[in-house]
């Protein structure tokens, strides 16, 4: 039995070739554009709104859906014949949502209000898929920014995004000329990250730690094991031109504000809604809802981003790469899944790719670059509905493969480094 186990691990490490059954490659690289030496396959397809994903040590995939498929919100995909293409699917969980994560023998998954966990048994399958333990309950979900994306550290804590139910905390949300509420009442129970325990049932606000504030909405977050700290990608505010047409042109509104990566610690404040980060001026700017004009700097307390990307590209997942498969350059660097913009119209949309930022000693060591592109299937996207696929979730396989989920058609991509 032990020999079988070692053989199995050997199979995984060696890309399954040692088992006689080899990975079925795709000459078109799943229609993706990748750096030299990388290849891709479609590990699965047709799952619909596939949001975040988690990979087991067996190479199986758990997928969280934001729209039920045949009444199920979580799918377990298995590769029985080990050719890299998932050939067995089973669904469970009757709730929609975004977050999913595997840690220390448990599968964690979120609805838009709660976080559940499932004990994993033999072969990493949920022991009782119909009766998960609800560990966090009753989080605010008021229409906008409802996804409860989360991640875990190595000390039994889970960090949950509670997004702002507003664009910029105006008196009338998204209304032209409407000013910001002072102080913004949303910040007491949303627009931040809350920390909870992984092993206590039915926790809510009173049981958690209000870990970080001033974050409009975070869908991509990951625990960096090098720095032992939480990194998040904020979805920046929308509609500077629509709301303040006299202060911002359509072009400025398409580029601004930055989509920011922040490193968080207990007590961090990233400044929403009072400010936004302008990646062209490299400054924290007072939000127009609070008296800003696109130039006045914000003088309050708010930390600087670690990386500032162009506006509206919608970072839906973040992953620090710790695998051994990719070249050294990628080790400990950050992959970001950009879902693709809508709020650059009438300018062309941007995003729809996976970006990479190299890191050294816990800090960016170079400029960001596009790592995987071509998901949209088009050279230019006028409207996000035109994209054939949109990157949404990221996960790392035991062998170091990078998995990317798509929430248009529910394709799961597996990207590998195969150069000898």
């Amino acid at each position, binding site marked *: 039995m032990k020999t079988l186990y070692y053989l199995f691990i050997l199979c995984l490490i060696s890309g399954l070739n040692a088992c006689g059954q080899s990975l079925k490659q795709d000459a078109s690289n799943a229609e993706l554009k990748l750096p030299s030496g990388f290849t891709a396959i479609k590990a699965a397809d047709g799952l619909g709104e596939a949001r975040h994903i988690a990979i087991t040590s067996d190479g199986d995939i758990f997928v969280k859906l934001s729209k039920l498929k045949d009444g199920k919100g979580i799918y377990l995909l298995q590769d029985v014949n080990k050719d890299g293409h998932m050939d067995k699917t089973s669904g469970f969980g009757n709730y929609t949502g975004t977050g999913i994560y595997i840690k220390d023998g448990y599968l964690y998954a979120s609805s838009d209000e709660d976080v559940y966990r499932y004990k994993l048994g033999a072969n990493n399958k949920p022991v009782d898929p119909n009766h998960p333990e609800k560990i966090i309950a009753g989080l605010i979900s008021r229409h*906008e920014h409802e996804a409860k994306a989360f991640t875990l550290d190595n000390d039994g804590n889970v960090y949950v995004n509670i997004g702002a139910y507003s664009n910029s905390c105006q008196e009338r949300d998204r209304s032209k000329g*409407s000013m910001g509420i002072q102080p913004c009442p949303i910040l007491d129970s949303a627009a931040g990250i809350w920390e909870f325990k992984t092993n206590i049932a039915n926790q809510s606000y009173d049981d958690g730690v209000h870990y970080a504030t001033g974050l409009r909405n975070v869908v991509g977050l990951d625990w960096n094991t090098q720095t032992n700290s939480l990194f998040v990608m904020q979805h920046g505010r929308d509609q500077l031109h629509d709301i303040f047409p006299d202060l911002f042109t359509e072009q400025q509104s398409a580029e601004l504000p930055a989509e920011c990566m922040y490193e968080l610690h207990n007590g961090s404040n990233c400044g929403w809604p009072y400010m936004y980060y302008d990646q062209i001026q490299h400054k924290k700017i007072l939000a127009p809802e609070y008296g800003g004009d696109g130039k006045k700097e914000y003088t309050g307390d708010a930390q600087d981003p670690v990386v500032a990307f162009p506006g509206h590209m919608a970072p839906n997942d973040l992953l620090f790469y710790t695998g051994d498969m990719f070249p050294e350059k990628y080790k400990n660097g950050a992959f970001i899944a950009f879902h693709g913009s*809508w709020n650059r119209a009438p300018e062309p949309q941007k995003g729809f790719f996976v970006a990479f930022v190299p890191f050294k000693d816990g800090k960016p060591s170079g400029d960001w670059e596009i790592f995987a592109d071509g998901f949209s299937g088009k050279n230019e996207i006028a409207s996000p509905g035109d994209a054939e696929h949109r990157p949404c979730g990221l996960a790392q396989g035991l062998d170091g493969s990078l998995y990317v989920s798509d929430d248009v058609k529910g394709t799961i991509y597996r990207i590998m480094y195969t150069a000898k």
Partner: protein
Amino acid sequence: MRKIIVCTCIMAFIAVSAQKQQPAKQSGSELYKQYCLSCHQVNGSGVPRMNPPLIKTSYVTGDKKKLIKWVLQGSVENVPIDGNYYSNNMPAQNYLTDQQIADVLTYIRSSFGNKASAVTAAEVKTVRASIK
């Protein structure tokens, strides 16, 4: 003769001032571009999961009163639209005139493949009065 010149000048002045005060009437498509496009997109397709489409939906091509009310009041409700949920709030557009709302809705109901009847300013006026 002098009187006539003065009079003509005054009239010309009035005409110019009137022109300045009354901006050129915007067409339905111009109004769409200014007030609707950034969320509902250039082709009316909306944004998956965020902003509902204006194409092939009874919300747009069906009951005009319901549509006018939606524009005047906006929406923060989490209601399914043809089976899908959209999470962004729509601001009330009640600062637009009856004629502007009629023009932009007429444009939307006859664009992007939609083929529904026009909306009149009188219809908008009636709905506006009913929700005050």
